[in-house]
């Protein structure tokens, strides 16, 4: 049985050092030899997959949130649709898209974007709704138009909630992107699946898994920094 998507065959470990042959926990010689041809490309692909997904997801969610915020009737169906998508297991959604978009990056991105929608949509709408009435009152008093109020008052005040949504979306996308390796030979899931198939090569599982966790933590931290920079007034 093979759980792997088609792709380049990773060199086998039979010829490796003693550590590799015995499936050691942390074979530095293997890591050094395969950082360049296995781990680093997987990491870069993972970052690309995640960035594209969160970027497109954010654009769609922002557009939907503006509609849902302006026309409250739409909020319930948009929310329900996002809920529905989020419930479907990632592994299943990837496979359900394969007959439509094939074993391609598109399949993976469509699914990843779908999963970001729930978090991003809900947080953006909640952020826009949480703008205090006094702020809107003041904006009206100053003679701002509807569009000006939105751009200069509502949107900036919603930034913390929007960034909170982006943090969740980024971390969950990085998590789900590991599963993408079942459809396309890309991302940090790939070395993990290879290692699972090759008698659980511990070093590879730990290294690739550790990179995925580190990537999630770094993405989260970067978004915190971005939020501080975007909302200088909220700095205590």
């Amino acid at each position, binding site marked *: *049985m*093979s*759980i792997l998507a088609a792709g380049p065959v990773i060199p086998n470990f039979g010829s490796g050092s003693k550590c590799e042959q015995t499936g050691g926990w942390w074979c530095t010689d293997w890591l050094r030899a395969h950082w360049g041809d296995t781990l680093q490309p997987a990491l870069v692909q993972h970052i690309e997959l995640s960035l594209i997904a969160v970027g497109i997801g954010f654009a769609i969610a922002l557009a939907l949130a503006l509609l849902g915020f302006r026309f409250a009737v739409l909020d319930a169906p948009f929310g329900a649709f996002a*809920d*529905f998508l989020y*419930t*479907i*297991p*990632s*592994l*299943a*959604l990837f*496979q*359900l898209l*394969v*007959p*439509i978009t094939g074993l391609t990056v598109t399949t993976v991105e469509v699914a990843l974007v779908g999963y970001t929608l729930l978090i991003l949509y809900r947080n953006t709408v909640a952020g826009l709704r949480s703008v205090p009435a006094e702020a809107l009152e003041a904006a009206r008093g100053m003679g701002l138009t509807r569009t000006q109020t939105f751009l200069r008052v509502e949107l900036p005040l919603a930034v913390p909630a929007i960034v909170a949504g982006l943090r*969740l979306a980024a*971390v*969950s996308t*990085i*998590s*789900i992107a*590991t*599963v993408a390796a*079942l459809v396309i030979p890309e991302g940090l*899931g790939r070395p*993990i*699946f290879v*290692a*699972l198939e090759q008698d*659980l090569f*511990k070093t590879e*599982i*730990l290294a*690739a*898994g550790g990179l*995925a*966790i580190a990537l*999630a*933590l770094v993405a*989260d931290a970067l978004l915190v920094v971005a939020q501080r920079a975007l909302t200088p007034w909220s700095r205590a």
Partner: protein
Amino acid sequence: MIASTFVDALRFIGDNPGLLLHLTAAHLELSLTALGIALVLALPLGLWLGHRHRGLFLALGVSSVGRALPSLVLIAFMTLTPLGIGFWNNTLALTVLAIPSILTNAYFGIVGVDRDVVEAARGMGLSERQILFRVELPLGLPLVMAGIRIAAIFVIATATIAAIAGGGGLGEIIVDQASYGLSGVIGAALCVSALTLVAAVLLTLLQRAASRRPEPNA
């Protein structure tokens, strides 16, 4: 061509009800065991910490660490434990994944209860235990139940991935296209999606029923 793939998938479901039911049962067994253990561990802790207004750091820490842990990575890591490959390694992974939302929501559900109400109950001479179970829990129940619902849906969905580490369940077909063909893979994907959607609807109804009774039954 697309339509025929899905028709074939439905045919696969029609032709293999026994296999699919068996795997659905295994899927639920794994999910419910993990969820049960997570509930036993995280629910009392979250409620107690919330009642004592302690452990904010723990509640926040557990939830953010939990989020940063990719499910697949955790499932892969658990294959390296002495639990080996099969039921328990996956149970442990899914338990770890279920704990954050149960713990965090239980904590914030109880912490968020109006302090005046709690003080009034204390003034009436209720014991700490009575305060927790007759005042705070009924009032915080919507949030506590939301945490359980989120964890349950997440575990049932993620149990699909457990198939890569010998967990059984409906994912077994999805990761084994060589044996079951594309129609089998799509059929199983449809089944597991239906399973999670049904579970999500049932849990949402349960949560609504639980939050419909806001007044403490002291």
